[in-house]
């Protein structure tokens, strides 16, 4: 049995690459369908302040999103662009999300735009969708998790709203209109 298994193993190992490729190709259809549905849901839901759309008509796996800062927070009235890249096995794995606009925030890398949010990492579940991610990000702006900061400076001055606002506006770049590719 072991022999058989071991003899099969390398072959299986060899065949994994094309097999996964094939699987990706097969699942590509269902992923596309899922993404289309998510897009439709997102378009038809009128959640204020969040929005996303595929960057180009040729690739449904690469989206651009826009998040408005929630009212009543220091981010109110500010808009941030994010990029959302879906993995081929979405929704088994979370999409890769980062801020394109510089965002001064305790949980956002001011240089790379990387985000520290549990549901985008270990807490990811297939029931989440673009809409839920965007909503979480929007609420994250007003309620940072200062316990695990990506931007320690920001986390340090979070409690001082005035000082934080000054720093925030120093880094903030308003979205230009013609930011298409």
């Amino acid at each position: 049995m072991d022999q058989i298994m071991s003899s099969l193993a390398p072959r299986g190992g060899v065949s994994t690459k094309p097999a996964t490729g094939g699987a990706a190709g097969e699942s590509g259809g269902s992923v596309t369908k899922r993404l289309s549905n998510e897009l439709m849901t997102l378009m038809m839901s009128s959640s204020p302040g969040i929005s996303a759309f595929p960057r180009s008509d040729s690739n449904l796996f690469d989206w651009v999103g826009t998040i408005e800062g929630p009212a009543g927070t220091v981010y109110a009235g500010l808009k941030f662009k994010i990029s959302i890249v879906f993995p081929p096995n979405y929704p088994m794995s979370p999409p890769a999300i980062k801020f394109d606009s510089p965002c001064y925030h305790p949980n956002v890398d001011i240089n790379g735009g990387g985000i520290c949010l549990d549901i985008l990492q270990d807490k990811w579940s297939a029931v989440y969708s673009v809409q839920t991610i965007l909503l979480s990000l929007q609420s994250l702006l007003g309620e940072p998790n200062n316990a695990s900061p990506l931007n320690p400076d920001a986390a340090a001055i979070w409690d001082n709203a005035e000082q934080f606002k000054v720093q925030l506006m120093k880094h903030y770049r308003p979205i230009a209109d013609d930011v298409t590719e």
Partner: protein
Amino acid sequence: MATDALRLHTAAKWQRAFERLNGAQPGIQGLLSFSEAWKVASDFLHPRDINDPGSIKTHDMQQVRAAFDLIGKAKMLSMLLENFLDDMRKQQYLVEREVRQYLEEYETTNQVDSVMQLIFRLVAWYNAWKPIAELGPTILSAYTLAFQTHIFSIFPPSFSRGFKELIASTFDLVNTSCPPPWAIPRDLPPTEQPPRPDYMLWTACETLGLLDRYESLISSVCYEHIEAHVYETCAKKWDEPMLPKLREWMTEEIVPWMIMPYARGARNAEEARTMLQGVGSRFDYHACKTLCDLRIQEIFDIIIDYPDSQSALQDLKVASSRPGLEDFGMMVNRVRGRLQECLQRVDQRSQLVVTLRKANKKRLLHPGADTKDILTQYVSIIRCLRIIDPPGVLLYKVADPIRKYLRERPDTIRCIVASLVGDGESGDSLVDENEPIQPLQQMQADDYNDPNWEPEPIDAGPDFRTNKPSDVISTLVSIYDSKDLFVKELQVLLTQRLLAVKDGNYERERRNIEILKIRFGEAALQVCEVMLRDMTDSRRIDQHVQAQKPMPLHPTIISRHFWPPLQTNSFTMPGQFREIQESYAREFHLFKPDKRLHWLSHLGTIKLDIELQDRTITAEVPPLEASIVELFSQKDTWTVDELVAELKSVEKTAILKSLTTWIDLGVLKEEAESRYKLLEIAEATPSGSKAPTRSVPVVEEPTPALTIQQQQAEQMRVYWKFIEGMLTNLGSLPLARIQTMLKFAPGYDRTIEQLAEFMEAARREGLVMVKDGMWKLCR
């Protein structure tokens, strides 16, 4: 020396001339007698004033003839003629004076008598001055020419007018039994009766050469006469064929008239016919053409009057075909022959197309016209032009703008579909009852193996196809590129009709569906079949449920996927109604465990008995009204806002409307603004006597199904969300990019032109703006 020669030459000439005059007479005897003859002859020929009786001399004709003879022998006739014409010229003022006098009289009185008298007078002058026939035709014709040239030169412009009128009056003259006094010369001996009333007139005209000179004028008079007759007798007269009558009239009126101006010299009928042939066919052609023109002018109204105006169309068809020459020969023979089909066509087809297109544009294709009317007229045009031109070239040319216009009208499909299923209320269906129901015909490619193939008519355009659908419905459906639109609209219509049926009699709809199946094919109408089956199934299920537990609710259960989207502004019924619904749903669930009922409470009607303290009111009302009165049974007084809060998802206006219904029925009363109270005891109304129980049918016709436009508007709303989404995230985009990105929207099938229109509309609403072809959202 030269002078000698010259002298000799001159002498010889002189001698020759002398000899010619003197003849062989001795001495100058010949010369003397020649001069005597010259004197007699020139005195005889001298043009005299016929008004002056003193100047008229009687000549011894013997002597005159001898004199002419002598002059002729001396070869001096030409000299004499020249002399005579010279004299004539000198005397012309006499004629001129009279011409002026008569025409002045004509100009003041406008009576053609004066012209006629003038002509007779001129003939008198002509005859008075005419040389005797013995002088030979040369001299006579020279004289005639000189005389005619002269009188033509002195006619003032008013003469043509007068002459034309005179000729026009001859049409009546032909039919009078005896000529009026003005049509006979005054000096005619009373014993001599002309063979025809107009005979004298025409001979006089011919003598003066007026016929040749005014030939075109004479024929134009005849043309005008024909035209006047056609307009008078045929205008607006479409219920009988006018062309045969017109031809008959031509035979009886025009041909006899023509004999005088055109065939005087004919000795027998055969000759007359030959002489009349050319001009006759011209007149006949003109009659046809005039009728044709008239009908073309009237074509729009003729089409409106179809089928009562069928005869006019036949006329147009035959009249636009020129008769052959032998046809005219028959007319002259007074043999009324069968009208022959065309040999050559009058070039009126393009005229017809232009006129009809213009009339359509002006009278039909404008926003004021009802789509149904346009369709009816279009169908009539189809039928009418098919009579005139069976291959359909004319129809193709005329129909094109109508089809284009209809395509842009939003309710065209609905109208066609409504008439397809024979909408009873409209009365006149587009479809002829007698026309057999047949499958829709599709455009067919040319059959290259057809031995009877004929080339397309000469004036057919490049797009013209001979084998186009020929029945009316196919033609109408072919306005659109696909029949899917029709099937969709059909479903909407069927929905409305099925849901409106109250007595459970679906036979009519079933029949319609069967008819439509023949036209559109079985497959296209499968959905309609399901809809119909839903209706019968509903009744069966209802019977079953009622058997288990009798309930006052009889729902129509429809399969959502097979019905067009229904209006969704549903609401939850309050109180007892909801209980009934719920218990019905429970029973239904027991019967069909795999299915669930989803109530569309806003559709349907409810029959209510409202028991109040002093009276019972019976009413059949829509569910919303029932709900409201149900709420009033819980509490006597409600404000509008409370009702809105209670019923949720119902518009305030709808609630207010329902309240009005109950106020009208005397159940509710508006106490204060927006406060309504139940009237347990009827209030005395001004009208006084209200029956304690009354049934008021308060059933309005709801339109349960969303129309195609509403569906499209709904779709467009989805697309707008996508556009909004992409513009929010991607900044500004060119139109082409928006179009390609919209492929993410499900079922997006608009063209870029439609998108451009839509974006333009959005721009007008201030939602987006455009700069350098880049669209972006207004913030």
